[in-house]
C-alpha cells in the first residue's frame, strides 16, 4: 500500500475525536456514583456525618484523600498525552503525603500514651482494608480505560497515577461511612489500602497501557 493511499483512508475517517477530558469524565463520574451508591446501600453513611464535617481531624481525611484522588486523575490526563511525561509534576502528590505524615505526627504527640495503641488499632481496620480496594475497582478501571485511549509514553507511571487517583477518590467515599476520626487510624490504614491498590494498578498499567 502506498502511503498516499493510507493517508486518503485516514483522512476520510473523522470519527472519535472527543478530547481526553470528556473520555475520562464519561467513565469516572458514573464509576464514582456506583461506588458511592454501593457504600450507601451496603454499609450506609455514618449517622453523625453532619457533625463530623465540623471536626477538623475528620475533615482532613476528606481533604487528604480527595486531594490525592483529584491530583491522580489530573495527572492521568497529563500523562495520557504522549509528551505529558515532561509536563507531569509529581511533587504535589508528595506534598499531600507530607501533610498526612505531619498530621499523624501531630496526633501522636497530642494523644495520651495510654490511648495510642487503641487509636491506631481501631475497630474497623479490616472493613477499611477490604472496602477501600473494593470501592476502588470501578474508579481505577475508569481512569485506566481513559488512559488506554490516550497515548502515554510512560505506562507504569500512568498506571500508578490511575491507581492513586481512583483509590484516593474511593477512600474519600469510604470516609462517609467510617467513624474512626483520628489520623492515628486513618493515615496508616487508609494509606495502606491506597498503597495496595496503587501498586496493583502500576503493574497492570505497565502491561495494559502500551500501544
Amino acid at each position, binding site marked *: 500500500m502506498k*502511503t498516499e493511499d493510507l*493517508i*486518503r*483512508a485516514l*483522512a*476520510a475517517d473523522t470519527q472519535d*475525536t*472527543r478530547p481526553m477530558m470528556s473520555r475520562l469524565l464519561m467513565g469516572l463520574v458514573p464509576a464514582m456514583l456506583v461506588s458511592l451508591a454501593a457504600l450507601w446501600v451496603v454499609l450506609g453513611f455514618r449517622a453523625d456525618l453532619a457533625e463530623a464535617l465540623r471536626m477538623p481531624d475528620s475533615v482532613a481525611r476528606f481533604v487528604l484523600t480527595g486531594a490525592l484522588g483529584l491530583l491522580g486523575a489530573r495527572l492521568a490526563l497529563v500523562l495520557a498525552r504522549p*509528551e505529558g511525561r515532561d509536563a507531569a509534576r509529581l511533587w504535589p502528590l508528595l506534598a499531600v503525603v507530607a501533610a498526612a505524615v505531619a498530621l499523624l505526627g501531630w496526633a501522636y504527640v497530642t494523644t495520651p500514651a495510654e490511648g495510642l495503641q487503641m487509636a491506631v488499632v481501631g475497630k474497623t481496620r479490616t472493613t477499611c482494608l477490604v472496602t477501600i480496594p473494593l470501592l476502588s475497582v470501578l474508579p481505577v478501571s475508569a481512569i485506566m480505560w481513559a488512559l488506554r485511549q490516550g497515548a502515554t509514553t510512560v505506562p507504569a507511571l500512568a498506571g500508578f497515577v490511575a491507581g492513586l487517583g481512583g483509590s484516593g477518590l474511593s477512600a474519600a467515599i469510604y470516609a462517609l461511612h467510617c467513624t474512626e476520626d483520628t489520623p492515628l487510624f486513618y493515615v496508616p490504614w487508609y494509606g495502606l489500602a491506597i498503597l495496595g491498590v496503587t501498586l496493583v494498578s502500576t503493574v497492570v498499567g505497565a502491561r495494559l497501557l502500551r500501544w
Partner: protein
Amino acid sequence: MERQSDDWEQLLTAANAGDSRAYTRFLHAVSPVLRGVIRAKSGGLGEASCEDVMQEVLLAIHLKRHTWKAGSPVRPWLYAITRYKVIDAFRARGRRIDLPIEDFVDSLAAEPGPDPTEAADMAKMIGMLEGRSAEIVRKIGMEGASFAETGKALDMTEGAVRVALHRALKNLAALRERHVK
C-alpha cells in the same frame, strides 16, 4: 519554520473538528519530516521497510490525534508519538535505536515528491481484516471512493461505512500490535 509550525496547529485543530481536507494537508505536511527522521535512523534497513515504519507511525498519529491538546504546540506532541512508535517498530525488526528529541530538530525532511515506495506490511495487515472491512479500506484508500460510493457497492448506509472504516483502522493497529508480540 515558525510559520510552518503555526500552520500545523491550525490544520490539526480543523482536522479534529472533522475537516477532512485540513487533515489531509496536515498528514502531507508532516510526512516528509517523519520520513526524514525514520530514514536517518534506519541504518540500511531499506526504503520499503522505512515506509512500513512510516505507515505505522501515521496510523498511530491518526488513532491518537485526540490526545493533542488544542492550543498547545503540535511538534512536541507529534515527535513524542513518532519517537515512541519508531523505537517500537525498529525493535520489532530486531534493532535497538536511540531517538532523542533533538534528532527531530536536526534531521532534514526527506525530499518531497511522490511516494517513493510501495510498503508491504500494511497491505498484509489489511488482508487479515475481516472481508468487508478490508474492502472498505481498499475502496476508500486505494481507489479514492467516497463513502456514498462505497456504501452503494457494499450495500451499506453511508453512516455504517464511516463507522466500519474507523473500526477497521483501529483493528489494523491492534493486528500489528499482536504480530509484534
